[in-house]
């Protein structure tokens, strides 16, 4: 579904991503791990079009998508959440998700019908699935951080994606909230058949949950493989896991 090879991006001479390779097959859950500053978020921003790569290639469903703008990519079936919460803070939880659905339905240029009656069922079913139904009418700028992160995911689902990209979905969450978020992600993958690409700090969590793992260090891909392969990779041991796992 997603093929990345030799991707490169520099900021003012600093190579944030220099040799990133990644492949994601349909239905897989793939994790990207790496220490702080390894270039995970930059990589995700390159994939979802927030940034333009300096070199290398990104193919999505067999099509070259380098340099396409985020809104085009979203229309192609790629949706993402952000590490730093990006939600519509003055709107209610319901309206946040509904806005994404309205956008997917291509009704954003409609000036004369009331928005609030559009896609109510679909929005509610997403809120249901994400366990946000009871917070439906809360102004989302006031939700707890954990709930906002879950809302991030819910908004991404509003675009009805094939590939869901989650940038540190559990960052800043309490243990309990992390548990909930993981359960949700598992549900998305198993029940809705979504392909998920995510990056994460918590190594244990990554190993327990992903089908395959890509390890990054200083902007380069060290390896990509199943959790078992990655665990036993000598390079990964040295670079990331501390050598004696």
């Amino acid at each position: 579904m997603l093929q990345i090879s030799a991707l490169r991006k520099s900021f003012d001479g600093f190579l944030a991503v220099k040799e990133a390779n990644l492949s994601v097959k349909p239905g897989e859950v793939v994790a990207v791990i790496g220490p702080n500053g390894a270039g995970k978020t930059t990589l995700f921003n390159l994939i979802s079009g927030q940034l333009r790569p300096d070199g290398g290639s990104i193919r999505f469903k067999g099509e070259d998508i380098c340099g396409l703008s985020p809104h085009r990519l979203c229309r192609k079936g790629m949706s993402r959440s952000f590490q730093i919460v990006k939600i519509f803070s003055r709107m209610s939880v319901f309206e946040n998700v509904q806005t994404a659905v309205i956008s997917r339905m291509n009704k954003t240029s409609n000036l004369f019908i009331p928005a609030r009656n559009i896609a109510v069922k679909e929005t509610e079913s997403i809120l249901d699935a994400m366990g946000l139904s009871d917070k439906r009418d809360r102004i989302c700028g006031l939700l707890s951080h954990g709930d906002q992160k879950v809302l991030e995911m819910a908004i991404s689902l509003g675009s009805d994606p094939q590939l869901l990209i989650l940038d540190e979905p559990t960052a800043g969450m309490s243990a309990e909230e992390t548990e909930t978020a993981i359960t949700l992600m598992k549900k998305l993958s198993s029940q809705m058949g979504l392909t998920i690409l995510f990056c994460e700090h918590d190594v244990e969590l990554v190993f327990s949950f992903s089908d395959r793992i890509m390890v990054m260090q200083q902007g380069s891909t060290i390896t990509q493989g199943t959790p078992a392969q990655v665990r036993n990779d000598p390079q990964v041991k040295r670079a990331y896991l501390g050598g004696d796992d």
Partner: protein
Amino acid sequence: MICGIFGKKALPLAALLLVGLIFLPAAVPRFYIYLTSVVLVTGLLATSLNLVLGYGGMYQFHHAAFYGVGAYTTALMLTKTSLPVWLAFAAAPLTAAFFGLLIGLICARLSSLHFGMLQISLGSLIWAVVYRWYDFTGGDDGIHGLPVPSAISGTTPAYYFILALTSLCLLLLFIIIKSPYGRILQALRDNPERCEAIGVNVTRHRIIGMVVAALFAGVAGSLFVTLEGSVFPELLSWSLSLEILIMCLLGGWFTFLGPMLGAGLIIGLRTVAGNYTEYWTLILGLMMMLTIFFLPKGVLGYVNDLFRSRAPSQPLKERSHVAD
């Protein structure tokens, strides 16, 4: 369909206000009818600005340019052509919208302050052309004694014409704000990056916003012609843009009727305080400072919070953080 977008209390209140305004000329002296007309026209202009400012989060710093373009379009068609009069009024919003499109195409890619700065320069450019082009626009003299049709000239007929069109425009603006497009506009204000990620073409929607806002500013411009029977370059001046911006902030820029209220407050202040001192803007400045410190969401924003705080489902404490 339309009733669905009003709150339970909003519709009767709006109807009551409208009825009050309809019977106003029977109750007050002519001067106040005129003054209310000025408030309505300026309020419509400020509300159209607020569509992109308060709802769209775009720093439209030179909105009066579209107002002036609208007014001059009507004035020039009334004086230089023999086309039907209604065409002169219909052309105003269209020309203004066209200018909105032009400026939008140039500015919409830029973010916040750069957007505002470029807009000021482009708007001032239009002002300079109008100010200098004596043969066509009358230059700094403007055009006076416009042949406004008799059915809508004179204080009271003009008032009713203005009231009817302003009400219609406000209704349309309200429908737009509650429409899917209005939702996206507010989403753009809250988080443009997230908007891109859910598949919204940010630039295109900003341009649409500017065109719509300019269209309604154009209507306000043609209403000004009805009221005053003259046009002059000050209609496109930057100080007027600033004044309507202050109306939005003062009245409450996250509320629909805030700009109209702001227009009422400022025009009222100018009329009353202007009688005593030519430095009435000092009082305005002071008011503005107090507003920023004590009512950061404007007068109507504050009132809204007060009412919501009484409803059990929305405690005030919760609401008060929303603006961050």
